[in-house]
């Protein structure tokens, strides 16, 4: 499967040839080249709590082992989310206050305001809708022709479901992934090539559009979409008077519901092609789908990192973290920690204890939409197995230049005619 090996055209230094203290896993290029796992393998072996003194984002700690990440993630009293959850700092004057970047007591009530949109009961109601959309998308796919799975399937299904969660005007739904990509592709996540002027223009449009929707929803009785829930809840109704807070919280929900599931849909198909014996196993036993969904989310780790800021000195793995230090939890590394996960680089769809992964984070900031993501993946794979004997990946995927969203812009596939 030579065509599926990491890109040889992007030159990234061999992590094993670098002096340990020169290792900086925050460069977006490393992820774009698909070399991140080698970088983190070396850090887990030789320096699991690693200090990078010089990086474009300033000095920061890398936490690379599973249990250390759980320790940091669940200790919000020491490891604060306030200010920012990316390695890169937001530009001066653009630090939107959002619940994902807040500590208690601000975080809880605001987060709780939007949770009903993805609560278990609501998801049971949405399952039939997810299924009918998945079926329509799959039925429209060409047979015997090469096409980009990301565009026609991963992006389309997640966009449609995101439009439903926001009750967003259907005909404009493609604006959602456009805005999501603008938000998540920026120099602060290591995307050196991002067009920051286009980003700013897009963000203004995006704010204006949602401001209009908000006023419409605020004037109507409450419903279960994100906008209506925020417009009617005392903990969040001030967003409309604080455009940065509004934009920030919208972005949390849009990026959270978009990049993540999209890249897991693409990553799952790629993984099954890289591990053909697992594809066989799946075809012979479709009941493995729910367990495979957790394995996909672990193997792909769609969110590569979350960053915290130390509020006090803290000793971790014989290293001394100082008050004020940036601490980056590399979920992408913890999910491949060979001391916690057996044969972690392998994709094993019937892996025991597959739910024990870091991709949703742990502690009070744990992913709000985890069940929505799992639901979309499960239903999509049930419907794929019901109609296609095989979907073949026919080219090397093009990965995204980001140290945050781990994903693909192109995955060329073919469904045999």
């Amino acid at each position, binding site marked *: 499967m030579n065509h599926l090996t990491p890109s040889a055209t992007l030159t990234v230094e061999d992590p094993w040839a670098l002096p340990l203290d020169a290792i900086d896993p925050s460069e977006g290029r490393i992820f774009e080249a698909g070399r991140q796992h080698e970088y983190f393998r070396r850090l887990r072996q030789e320096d699991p709590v690693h200090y990078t003194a010089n990086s474009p984002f300033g000095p920061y700690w890398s936490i690379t082992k599973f249990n250390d990440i759980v320790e940091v993630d669940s200790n919000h009293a020491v490891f604060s989310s306030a200010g920012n959850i990316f390695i890169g700092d937001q530009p001066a004057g653009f630090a939107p206050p959002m619940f994902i970047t807040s500590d208690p007591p601000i975080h809880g009530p605001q987060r709780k305001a939007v949770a*009903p949109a993805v609560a*278990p009961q609501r998801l049971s109601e949405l399952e039939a809708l997810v299924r009918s959309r998945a079926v329509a998308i799959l039925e429209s796919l060409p047979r015997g022709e090469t096409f980009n799975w990301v565009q026609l399937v991963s992006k389309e299904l997640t966009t449609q479901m995101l439009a439903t969660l926001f009750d967003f005007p259907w005909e404009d739904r493609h604006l959602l992934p456009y805005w999501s990509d603008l938000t998540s592709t920026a120099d602060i996540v290591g995307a050196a090539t991002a067009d920051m002027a286009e980003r700013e223009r897009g963000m203004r449009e995006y704010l204006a559009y949602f401001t209009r929707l908000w006023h419409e929803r605020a004037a109507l009785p409450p419903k279960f979409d994100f906008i209506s829930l925020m417009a009617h809840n005392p903990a969040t109704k001030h967003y409309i008077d604080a455009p940065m807070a509004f934009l920030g919280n919208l972005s949390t929900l849009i990026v959270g519901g978009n990049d993540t599931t999209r890249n897991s849909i693409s990553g799952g198909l790629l993984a099954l092609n890289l591990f053909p014996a697992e594809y066989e196993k799946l075809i012979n036993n479709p009941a493995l789908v729910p367990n495979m969904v957790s394995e996909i989310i672990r193997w792909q780790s769609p969110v590569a990192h979350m960053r915290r800021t130390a509020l006090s000195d803290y000793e971790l793995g014989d290293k001394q973290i100082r008050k004020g230090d940036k601490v980056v939890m590399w979920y992408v590394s913890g999910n491949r920690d060979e001391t916690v996960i057996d044969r972690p680089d392998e994709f094993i769809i019937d892996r025991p204890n597959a*739910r024990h992964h870091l991709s949703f984070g*742990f502690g009070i900031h*744990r992913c709000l939409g*985890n*069940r929505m993501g799992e639901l979309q993946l499960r239903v999509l794979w049930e419907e794929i197995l019901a109609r296609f004997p095989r979907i073949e990946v026919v080219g090397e995927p093009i990965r995204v230049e980001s140290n945050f969203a781990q994903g693909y812009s192109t995955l060329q596939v073919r469904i045999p005619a």
Partner: protein
Amino acid sequence: MIKVTFIQHSGTPYEVAATAGSSLMRAAVENGVPGIDGDCGGACACATCHVFIEPKWSALTGPAGEAEFAMLGFSEYRQPTSRLACQINLTAALDGLTVRLPEGQF
């Protein structure tokens, strides 16, 4: 062995036998009780082992701790009797414990 009963949201009971010293979450996961996930492995960090303690047992299980209370705050179904099963250590005094499951885990 300690006998524990998990009553599903649908009403179906699952009776399991657990060893003393194990957590209530482990007792469920190791015996394949549906509806208890325990994603974080017992670190009080995911709230996917939420249960309601039957009133006659609540004095013995005690109240939720501070971190546990914060995690339970994210459930749509929290009640005064809510606990995370990973934070309940099974002792001989809890032989016969009965808990109910919410409609869904976080």
